[in-house]
């Protein structure tokens, strides 16, 4: 865990004179899983868009590896291409491309849907295709922009386990943006709290995996929640 894969240095961004990000600094190393939490409008998605190159920062520098992929909140599949074609979209086409797609779908448990149209999949299935599409390229940087946010609680638990396994297997540098503090603590090595456009806090999570929120993470959970400005009295079950 020594090679830095993401370096964000003094990045600022504003929309219509409103500062979204101000002087953000961030380093993510190879194989490291970093979660970014923050309230709505704290600039999480903007940071993601900057890292994936969908927009350029007003100020500061960003360095990312060549191979970087994103899983968005919605699957964003191309409806007019079959599931397996979606997985290898944009890749150089060769004789082994389809096998590659089928392998990746196998890993997310969707081998049987390879020839289906995206419109016939459930929300969870479509999102698994999106994950296969992101991992089939063996990215050095994996950007997860609230990838499980739109899924139901049960599917989300399964998908968290799936993401955890796959990230451990392929060891990309991973940045997960999420609203879900539990999810952040379950998956990440480090949780960053974004507040008023800057990274205000960092919480190291070094519990062994696989983790469970009810085992050894309670204090950190309350800690992160209070950093996010949630009064813990009400949710202390």
């Amino acid at each position, binding site marked *: 865990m020594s090679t830095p894969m993401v370096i964000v240095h003094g990045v600022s961004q504003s929309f219509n004179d409103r500062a979204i990000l101000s002087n953000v600094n961030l380093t993510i190393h190879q194989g490291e899983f970093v979660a970014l939490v923050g309230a709505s409008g704290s600039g999480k998605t903007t940071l993601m868009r900057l890292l994936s190159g969908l927009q350029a920062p007003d100020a500061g520098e960003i360095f990312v590896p060549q191979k970087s992929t994103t899983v968005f909140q919605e699957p*964003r599949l191309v*409806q*007019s291409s079959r599931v397996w074609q979606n997985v290898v979209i*944009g*890749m150089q086409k060769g004789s082994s491309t389809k096998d590659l797609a089928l392998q990746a779908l196998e890993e997310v448990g969707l081998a049987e849907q390879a020839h289906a149209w995206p419109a016939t999949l459930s929300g969870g299935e479509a999102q698994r295709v999106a994950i296969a599409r992101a991992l089939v390229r063996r990215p050095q940087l994996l950007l997860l922009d609230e990838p499980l946010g739109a899924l139901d609680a049960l599917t989300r638990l399964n998908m968290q386990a799936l993401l955890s396994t796959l990230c451990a297997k392929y060891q990309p540098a991973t940045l997960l943006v999420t609203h879900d503090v539990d999810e952040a603590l379950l998956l990440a090595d480090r949780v960053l709290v974004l507040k008023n456009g800057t990274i205000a806090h960092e919480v190291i999570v070094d519990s062994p995996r696989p983790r469970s929120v009810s085992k050894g993470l309670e204090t950190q959970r309350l800690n992160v929640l209070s950093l996010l400005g949630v009064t813990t009295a009400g949710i202390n079950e």
Partner: protein
Amino acid sequence: MSVLSAPRLLSQRPRKASWSLLTRISLPIILLVGWILLAKSTLIPPLTLPTPWQVISELKAMYLQQHLMSNIGVSLLRAIVGLALGAGIGFLLGLFSGLSKIGEEFFDATLQMFRAVPFIALTPLFILWFGVGETPKILIVAFATYFPMYIATASGVRNVDRKVVESAKTFGLRGPRLVKEVIVPLATPQILTGLSLSMVISVLALVAGEQISSQNGLGFLFAQSQAYGRNFEVFTCILLYACMGLLAAVVVNVIQRVALRWRKGVAVR
């Protein structure tokens, strides 16, 4: 206790294929029956409206004496070549205008201007410029058909989901591949609407293009029968044009079935 009932079905029930065919042909059959009744009645002088049998014998006569099939073939070829040219240009310009602001700013206004020029008014000019051969006829068809394709492609391309395009870009799809693999397939429903309009208009333009200074083609037969006051022949030609319109609809339908299989779960129907 309130009375409960099964929820009202909001989607369309699946129907048998045979019923579907019957529904399709029912209105043409009704029209045909109406035509027969009208032709047999005394409401209309018999010389102005032929019966279906008279039309069939007229067709036979045209087939034997006026090379009907080869004339239709010539007309179809002109329509297809003109359409390929016009719709092809419309598609490319629409793509350009839909994808890039520069493209739209550069030629949108000009195309909108040309569109308002009635192609029938151009016929004498085109003959003056391009002679009396195939060129002016094909160009008239092309001129008449580029616009529906242009407007449909431009708006189809512009309406493709920005989020999907963004995500395709993050996976490395750029330039021509992005257009070919994502943008055009997703815009196909609208592009095909444009194509179907262009096809119908190609038949209209053919009527205009072939009526002046032609030695062959359906338009030539039409013009001749008009000139000699052969009403039944005029009527038969009109029916043949209608059949060409039907042919265009069938072609578009087949293309839609093949190209839009993915859309089953997306569109309302």
